[in-house]
């Protein structure tokens, strides 16, 4: 469960970093916005949780994607995707989005009803049917993205752009359009993740930090820019976190996990599954 959600939220970040070589610190806020919009849509759309959920699956990625489009056009392109300037600018964006969410939606945690509820009962504990659905949906999305990247023309274009911006330009690939598309797709993906997760978690304007940090961790362990690596890392972390916390107090477990991630990045900057940077 944790692993599927993690992989999904990290996917967008990984995609953006992979192709554009920039870190979007506002990634978590895109997630938060997606969740907020899911709540808002569910409230606005009549016809019960299922209708609201379906509507949110359209509205949230579209709106967040549009915001990402503006960000890419008005901000990132102007600073020429400079890695450090991008981090600073997206930190700024993080604050702006947080404040807007607070002003527009308020500070309360906003619960969203799951489109369906079904509790799968095991003899020793129960499991939510909706959570299982989230896992299945995440797997579908991950496989879908992988398929696009590995098997289609778009994927090829993205990989060429990732490999070398100049070469791509020389091959007549509209690099700017590709960047826009990737950034928007990354944001839309994380918004979808948020819509899926919000019936489990609820929306809150400060919820973005946690997925951001976790996504960072996943993307780092998996190797910056490697989608396969991100998925494997999400699985490992989703499980390891649970295992570590059996042996240590949870806060200590978090400390150990964080340190471990940092050390991985120090020893193998390319991540566990990444290939050495050119």
């Amino acid at each position, binding site marked *: 469960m944790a692993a599927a959600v993690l992989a999904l939220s990290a996917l967008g970040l990984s995609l953006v970093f992979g192709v554009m070589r920039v870190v979007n610190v506002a990634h978590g806020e895109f997630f938060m916005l997606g969740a907020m919009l899911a709540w808002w849509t569910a409230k606005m759309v009549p016809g019960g949780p299922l209708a609201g959920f379906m509507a949110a699956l359209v509205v949230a990625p579209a709106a967040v994607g549009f915001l990402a489009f503006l960000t890419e056009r008005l901000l990132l392109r102007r600073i020429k995707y400079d890695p450090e300037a991008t981090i600073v600018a997206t*930190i700024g964006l993080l604050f702006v989005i*947080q404040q807007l969410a607070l002003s527009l939606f308020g500070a309360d945690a906003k619960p969203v009803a799951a489109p369906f509820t079904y509790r799968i009962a095991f003899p020793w504990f129960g499991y939510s049917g909706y959570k299982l659905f989230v896992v299945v949906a995440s797997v579908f999305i991950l496989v879908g993205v992988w398929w696009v990247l590995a098997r289609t023309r778009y994927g090829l274009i993205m990989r060429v752009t990732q490999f070398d911006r100049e070469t791509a330009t020389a091959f007549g690939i509209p690099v700017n359009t590709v960047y826009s598309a990737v950034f928007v797709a990354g944001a839309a993906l994380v918004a979808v993740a948020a819509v899926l997760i919000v019936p489990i978690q609820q929306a809150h304007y400060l919820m973005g930090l946690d997925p951001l940090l976790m996504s960072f961790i996943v993307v780092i362990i998996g190797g910056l820019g490697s989608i396969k690596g991100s998925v494997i890392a999400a699985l490992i972390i989703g499980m390891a976190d649970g295992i570590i916390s059996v042996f240590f*107090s949870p806060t200590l477990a978090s400390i150990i996990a*964080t*340190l471990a*991630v940092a050390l991985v*990045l120090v*020893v193998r*900057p390319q991540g566990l599954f990444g290939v050495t940077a050119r």
Partner: protein
Amino acid sequence: MFLHLAVIAALFLAQFAASEYIVLMLTRIMVLAIFAIGYNLLFGYTGLLSLGHAMFFATGLYAAALGTTLMGLTVPAAFAFAVLAGLAVSLVMGVITLRASGVAFMIVTLMFSQAAFLTVLYFGEYTRGDEGIVIPDTIRKFAFLGFDVDLANAVLRYNLALAFLGCAIAFSLLIVRSRIGHILIAIRENETRTSMLGYDVQRYKLAAFVMSGTLSAFSGACYALMFAYAGSTLASIQYSIHPLLWTLLGGASTVLGPVLGTGLMFVLVDLASSYTNANLLMIGVVLILLVLFFPKGILGTIRERYWKWLP
């Protein structure tokens, strides 16, 4: 040089002219400007963008707070202890994190800082976690070199903060003007080249890292002892972003930029909070505008256009 003395002198005179509130605010600005100056040594001059400086600030903060309340240190001893702790932590962190570079360095420092934040919570028995600890007034009154010092005294505290800030500016100026300063800039400009000129780049980066971390810890110690509080909020990610913001606003790789940036940001937030609650929005917008239009900050832009001699 003259400019820097003038700034110090102006700050000294300000306490006679400004309102009580401004004096209090300036005290805080000066203490935190030391943090920004420390940050600038690494970010501005060496070109290493750390997202984890809260960890050093917190090192000083807690070394001073726990040193006085739990270990029974006097205030001067607590300052010394905080500096030593800052030195040790930044040395260890530097050796580890400097193996990474670029974006990886940013994220590694962020991670370590987050681990430090969690560590503060983990030792909640001593640190009282998020709630934090208050340093009693009895500890903040002490005799030093025959003088009776009371850190609750606003005038004394202002001048102490000013003296510390003066030292930090002088130190920063000294470093920047020295051989090591030139080499740090060379590393920022072109690391491979500098290494191929026979410089031990790793050692110089470590030196910058340690100076930066130690200054930050010193600022943290000042904060704890002068304002009598240490809490985990001051170790959170936000306090890693603050010095970056201040430095960027004032002008990275200018000696006075961090001071100006800290002051300006305080005034902005303070003014805004009287009219609107959109503090976050403003910080965000300032960051974005800076990156878009003034990537060199205020003093950096001034240096580029007018005062080329500005250090």
